[in-house]
């Protein structure tokens, strides 16, 4: 089971990435083995006055994914993701599909 989470504003692989993490609209959870995906919404974090990044990191952890691709991950969220053993990669612009392709080709920069 290897899953990758990508922050997105849409609901398909062609949808644009969302450069925000804590305040991202949705998460697309892509399963690299079965090549299928599901989209989960981030409304719980969006509704939080504070700690949106932490709450989003918990949602990502719940999907079982060990890889996250987003634009910008704040320090608190990064601490939570790291504690959950989730690798973070940064990728700006473009679509979810392109982010996945760049990840497969090992072209993404890891967020420490």
């Amino acid at each position, binding site marked *: 089971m290897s899953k990758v989470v990508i922050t997105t504003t849409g609901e398909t692989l062609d949808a644009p990435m969302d450069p925000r993490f804590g305040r991202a609209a949705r998460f697309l959870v892509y399963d690299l083995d079965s090549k299928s995906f599901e989209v989960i919404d981030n409304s719980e974090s969006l509704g*939080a*006055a*504070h*700690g949106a990044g*932490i*709450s989003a*990191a*918990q949602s990502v*952890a719940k999907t079982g994914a060990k890889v996250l691709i987003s634009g910008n991950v704040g320090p*608190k969220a990064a*601490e*939570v993701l790291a*504690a*959950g*053993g989730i690798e973070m990669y940064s990728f700006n612009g473009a679509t979810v599909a392109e982010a996945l392709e760049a990840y497969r080709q090992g072209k993404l920069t890891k967020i420490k």
Partner: protein
Amino acid sequence: MILAIASGKGGTGKTTVAVNMARSIGNAVELLDCDVEEPNDHLFLKGTLRSSHVVTIPVPSVDGALCDNCGECGRFCEYHAIVCMGGPPLIFPEICHGCGGCAIVCPRKAIKEISHEIGVVEALDCGTVRLLQGRLKVGSMLTPMLIRSVKERAATTGTVLIDAPPGTSCPVVAAVEGAHAVALVTEPTPFGLNDLMLAVDMMRALGLPFGVVINRAGMGDNRVNDYCRAEKIPLLAEIPNDRRIAEAYSKGKLAVDILPEMRAIFLSLYQKLLALAKERP
């Protein structure tokens, strides 16, 4: 009597009204600077610091020897201030609300509470004005809590003026709740009117008696006056758009010290607020 000065957004002259009114009243008055993220009344009143009180909340601290990483504390905390990712809990004191719930739910009694500073409340003597100001620690999110602790330290008799933070969110509610009357400061521009309308909605929702102060009157149009008339909102004062007032402000001086004739405007504002407060059923 508690009188608050608020505005739908920053930069409308709320500070000018608060400090000049405080100085004009003359006999012992207490001014509470509740704009705790950026208190600036002291820049104009220039007093001597009398006391400083650190405000803390209890935040969790986990004893690693007792904790078995069960995750109960993280599941309980709705603020995500304690988070369990399988290993030892991660704690984020800046967003903790100090409710103590995590310590109660911990089955291993592994959580004890330690003090975490959210800010300070300072008392300054500024001649006839006693200034109480809150200063929120950078990074703390507990603005309303610090505002409440400023207010808890206020005098229980005499005149208390509250300089509320700008806007219409929770910190403003924390600052104006309990006031007997509120002055909403605005500018006579379309933007000013828009922010004023939001502030008016808030006052009505809170059920507080209020009126409007137009700052820099004459610089814009009459829309604010027309709106107040249509909505039957009392106009409490109009502060002229005099560049000497702006100059005084930019030098950290009080307009009423430089232009003594201005005192009448602020005294009349004070009287009208008192009258508003007394009208209340």
